[in-house]
């Protein structure tokens, strides 16, 4: 579904953020990307739907190259859901309008159909009664669940999560992870940048460990948590799992 091959990215000629990144996410697979901060994991996931440009290599989604200038990027992006660290709900729109905007303007759905779909998804993430509120009236965890519902409203073929729980208070993390676990169990193709190793253990098929812009380890979940091959991944795991 998502093919990443030999991607290099430089912020400036002397500062390379991604070095020869190659991996893939198969249909229905859940891949967790972890690593210390500054390792390039968020940059990599943003390259997948071309929110960040990259200079070398190829990324394709469902066979369509994202780095081909001829690709209709808005159309491709509309098929890939993305959830951000800081939610990025549109603060001037009500919750339900956040869910309807792209359905109507991008997919051309009729307003009542978009509303029905939006309400069903809000119900699914447990926020139906908040439909008429504005984002600022919701807690962080609720906003992030709305953001997931907003992405799902586009009927995506895959979902990208960029540190979806990093900006949340600890007591709100599980309500977001629960939604994501459900999604994973339903067979959604997911690429998730996160430090939540509990989530990785529960639903991930594979775990990718990045450090200094490189993919250091790309292993099946059990292999990764059992005995990571690289020193760096072992150190990282021992640090975040010791508490």
């Amino acid at each position: 579904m998502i093919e990443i091959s030999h991607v290099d990215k430089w912020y400036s000629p002397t500062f390379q953020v991604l070095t020869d990144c190659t991996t893939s996410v198969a249909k229905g697979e859940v891949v967790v990307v972890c690593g210390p901060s500054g390792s390039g994991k968020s940059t990599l996931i943003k390259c997948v739907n071309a929110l960040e440009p990259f200079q070398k290599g190829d990324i394709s989604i469902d066979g369509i190259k994202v780095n081909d200038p001829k690709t209709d990027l808005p159309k491709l992006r509309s098929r890939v859901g993305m959830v951000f660290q800081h939610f990025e709900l549109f603060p001037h729109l009500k919750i339900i309008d956040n869910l309807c905007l792209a359905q109507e303007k991008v997919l051309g759905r009729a307003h009542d159909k978009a509303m029905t779909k939006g309400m069903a998804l809000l119900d699914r993430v447990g926020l139906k009664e908040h439909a008429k509120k504005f984002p600022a009236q919701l807690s962080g965890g609720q906003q992030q669940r709305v953001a997931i519902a907003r992405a799902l409203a586009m009927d995506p073929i895959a979902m990208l999560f960029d540190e979806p729980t990093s900006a949340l208070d600890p007591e709100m993390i599980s309500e977001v992870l629960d939604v994501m676990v459900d999604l994973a169990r339903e067979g959604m193709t997911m690429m998730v940048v996160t430090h939540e190793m509990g989530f990785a253990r529960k639903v991930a098929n594979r775990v990718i460990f990045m450090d200094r812009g490189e993919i250091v380890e790309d292993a099946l979940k059990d292999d990764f948590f059992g005995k990571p091959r690289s020193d760096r991944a072992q150190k990282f795991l021992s640090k975040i799992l010791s508490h």
Partner: protein
Amino acid sequence: MFSNFDFNVIIRALPYLFYEGMSFTILLTALSALGGLVFGTALALMRLSGYKILGRIAGLYVDFMRSLPLVLVIFWFYFLVPYIGQWLTGASRPISVGAFASSLVTFIMFEAAYFSEIMRAGIQSISRGQPAAASALGLTYAQTMRYVVLPQAFRNMLPVLITQTIVLFQDTSLVYVLSITDFLGAASKVAQRDGRLVEMYLFAAVVYFTISCIASYGVRRLQSRIAILR
């Protein structure tokens, strides 16, 4: 000076001052603000578009307009536009556009430079995550601007935009140099006709002061309300 201050002069002139003068002033202010906002937003988008040439053109335009005195631009347009019209249409004589059309075009062009800077600041105040989220949903650049960025930028900047419009409201009195009957022009005409300079100019000042003050107060109220909503 005030020994023979005559309120009746003012009262008799009221219908003329407001029906002819103030309605013109308000019409010119409203249309100029609207046009200036649309054109100014376009200039701001050009400057932020990432296309160097577009940005340079808009930047030069803004700097140019902000470096000229408004009265000069009003004169300039009034005398130049007919010749430009003649040149464009190939007519044998300069095309008369009338003082109103000429002053309206002037104010739109001039105010656009100021509104564009306000809108630019407003657009830059939106976090980069917002357009990223909009793009990620599949919205095009134009849709992202129209439905996500500009509504927020406009809302954030509304108090500043209204403040600029109050300045514009006062500046429209400069059309007096084209002997247009705006509010000040009307007051001036009555003053000359009746020889009542003190009454008419004092009254005009009071009216401008009152309207601007009330509007400024409204802006402060609005600011505090917006602050709560965010």
